């Protein structure tokens, strides 16, 4: 049987059709349009239709195009790292922690360094919750401390040490020039230097965070767009129970 490769679809199976738009430092004329076409050609596109050309002034032109790619993805190559713990609701998590851990879990959260976007971490932690799920502050099984925005890595770690935290929750929303990577890396390095890394779970989140990226950066887990308190709470409860069972 022929292996089914994954290819883009416009209106004919696996026709490879994609929509693109981009700006080039060229004039909006036939020459510029040809530059756009050549760029797409070099990227391996066929059937290139540069259908839109908009003058951006100051020597730039915006192109809009449709084209077919010959690239295909082999489904066998798709390997995703996702948080794999089951998701329980608040009552279930509370019951689970009571049964398997027998004490409340302490988590300390913050939006670190220059980042002031607290809505994400609040969505996870605040009493009133988000999208119909209460935040960790409402959980009986959690002692949730939300330090808010623009907290330095040092402050966060100090507090986590003082509270004897089970988990640290970090949010990073601003990503321009990969500042989130820099900030998250700095936190982990400090934690290692201060020998805190293995004492608690390190969890990060934000719109450009994936579990995979989190693992790469040395975190235990990462949560992106569309995560809820229930996901994080279940994750912490299950992993902590596991660790306690294994006596680590």
């Amino acid at each position, binding site marked *: 049987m022929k292996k089914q490769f994954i290819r883009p*679809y*416009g*209106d*004919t*199976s696996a026709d490879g*059709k994609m*929509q693109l738009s981009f700006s080039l430092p060229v004039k909006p004329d036939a020459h510029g349009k040809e530059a756009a076409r050549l760029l797409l050609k070099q990227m391996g596109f066929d059937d290139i*239709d540069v*259908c*839109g*050309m*908009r003058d951006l002034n100051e020597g730039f032109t915006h192109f*809009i195009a*449709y084209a077919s790619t010959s690239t295909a993805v082999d489904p066998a190559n798709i390997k995703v790292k996702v948080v794999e713990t089951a998701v329980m609701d608040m009552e279930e998590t509370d019951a689970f922690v009571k049964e398997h851990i027998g004490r409340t879990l302490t988590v300390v959260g913050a939006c670190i360094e220059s980042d002031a976007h607290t809505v994400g971490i609040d969505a996870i932690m605040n009493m009133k919750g988000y999208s119909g799920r209460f935040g960790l502050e409402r959980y009986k099984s959690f002692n949730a401390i939300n330090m808010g925005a623009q907290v330095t890595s040092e402050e966060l770690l100090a507090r986590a040490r003082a509270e004897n935290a089970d988990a640290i929750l970090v949010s990073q929303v601003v990503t321009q020039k990969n500042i989130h990577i820099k900030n998250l890396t700095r936190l982990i390095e400090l934690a290692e230097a201060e020998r805190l890394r293995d004492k608690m779970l390190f969890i990060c989140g934000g719109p450009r965070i994936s579990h995979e990226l989190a693992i790469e950066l040395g975190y235990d887990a990462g949560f992106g767009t569309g995560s809820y308190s229930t996901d994080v709470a279940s994750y912490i409860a299950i992993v902590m129970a596991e660790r306690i069972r294994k006596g680590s």
Partner: protein
Amino acid sequence: MLQLDLDISLVDRARAAAQKITGSFGWLFEGYSSVTIERTVLRLMGLDGALKDGKPLPNVVIDQLHKSGSLGKGAAIRLANAMLLQNMSAAEVATAINDQNLDISALPPAPADEIHALLSELTDKMMAHISGQKAKREEMYQRFGERRIPAIYVIVATGNIYEDAVQAKAAAREGADVIAVIRSTAQSLLDYVPYGATTSGFGGTFATQENFRIMRQALDEVSEDEKRYISLTNYASGLCMPEIAALGAMERLDLMLNDAMYGILFRDINPRRTLLDQSFSRMINAYAGIEIQTGEDNYLTTSDAVEKAYTVTASQLINEQFALLSGVKPEKMGLGHAYEIDPEMENSFSFELAHALLSRQLFPHSPIKYMPPTKFASGNIFKTHLMDAMFNFVGQLTGQGVQLLGMMTEAIHTPHLADRSLAIENAKYIFKAVKDLGANLSLAPDSFVNRRAHQVLEEATLFLEKVAADGLFSAMAKGEFADIKRPDDGGKGLDGVFAKDEDYYNPFRERMMKELKI
């Protein structure tokens, strides 16, 4: 409430002129028939199938009869006669004509009562089937609730009926209420209806009975899943208006593009031929409970949407009268209109609001078919998406009947799966955002919108009165519609028109006229 302050006496004058124009075609509708009308009769009698080379059996039979000049009595009697004498099914008769040179016009007449018994039986059967389809549709609406206003209408046009079905199902699940399968270019000029499931068309997919069936089944499936009746539509207009209307009736299409004016102006089909065909095809639509849709929007793809706005209104009024003559109820008249104003124009939205309200108010019971920006759609998909949003805004604000969603790729290609999805997202968002906005607003009597609507109505009235004085054919010959000149003896298909004999008989037309009370 957004309500225009229209001059009722002007409305009455315009309608009277339209009635005068359409009322003068009795000679054509009563005195003539056409090859496609006769093929329709055969199809309704149960003749289906095609030769190996693709020629449909109804064409085999009618070609023989037409060539020999023996269609004057109508094809029904000829075929029934042959079936009785040869003791053959309809398909067998057709095959025999082709294979064995059977000449059915040369057969002696069977006893008249036998012929009429057979015709009655076949007519009853088909009429019952079509009524059944109508009942089925009504039952589903009953069960799932009425269609939303405006209904979300999208097209599929891959050229391959199986791809079309996937795309249609995806669109229906996303929120589409009506799916149209665009026809392959130039099908409207074919003097036959292709046969079977088809997978290669350009700019659209062939309209065939089998394709109708495949799509109907796909949509019924989604209707049950989504608990929302998903309507199907296709195009009758062209050289096979009544045949396609009949196939639509059999396969439970719910709406059909049905407009002779479109065929005349945009496909250069002979005016006499297609007005005649339209008359019978609309009866079939009416009997089957199928909503017709007209093509006034097309005028604005070639003429200026502001300057020639009145031609839309005038044509709507003419189409209304033609539809009434065929027994179509106002509730089933999807008269056309389009948002084709130049986006570079100042106050384009206010102009459009005036035009859209005018269509709405002149035909308060009709599900106006509202077409999206196409002419000024460009390769800039982002801009086109915005123009479509303004169109959706006006559609909801003025409560148009059917909103044919614009696609951001209108100027580029027939819609890709994602284009259609984004179009539905666009409409759903805008419809929801401005849901009851209209109820908050009113128009000052001396407002621009009011004055503009009045102006269009006045221009339409004067135009209709001129056409009424001149005659429709003469006006068309002069290029009064959409700047296109169409003499009544020009164009395609006139050779398929013939005068009926005294004893011409079309059992379906008679029965339908009786049941439709026309």
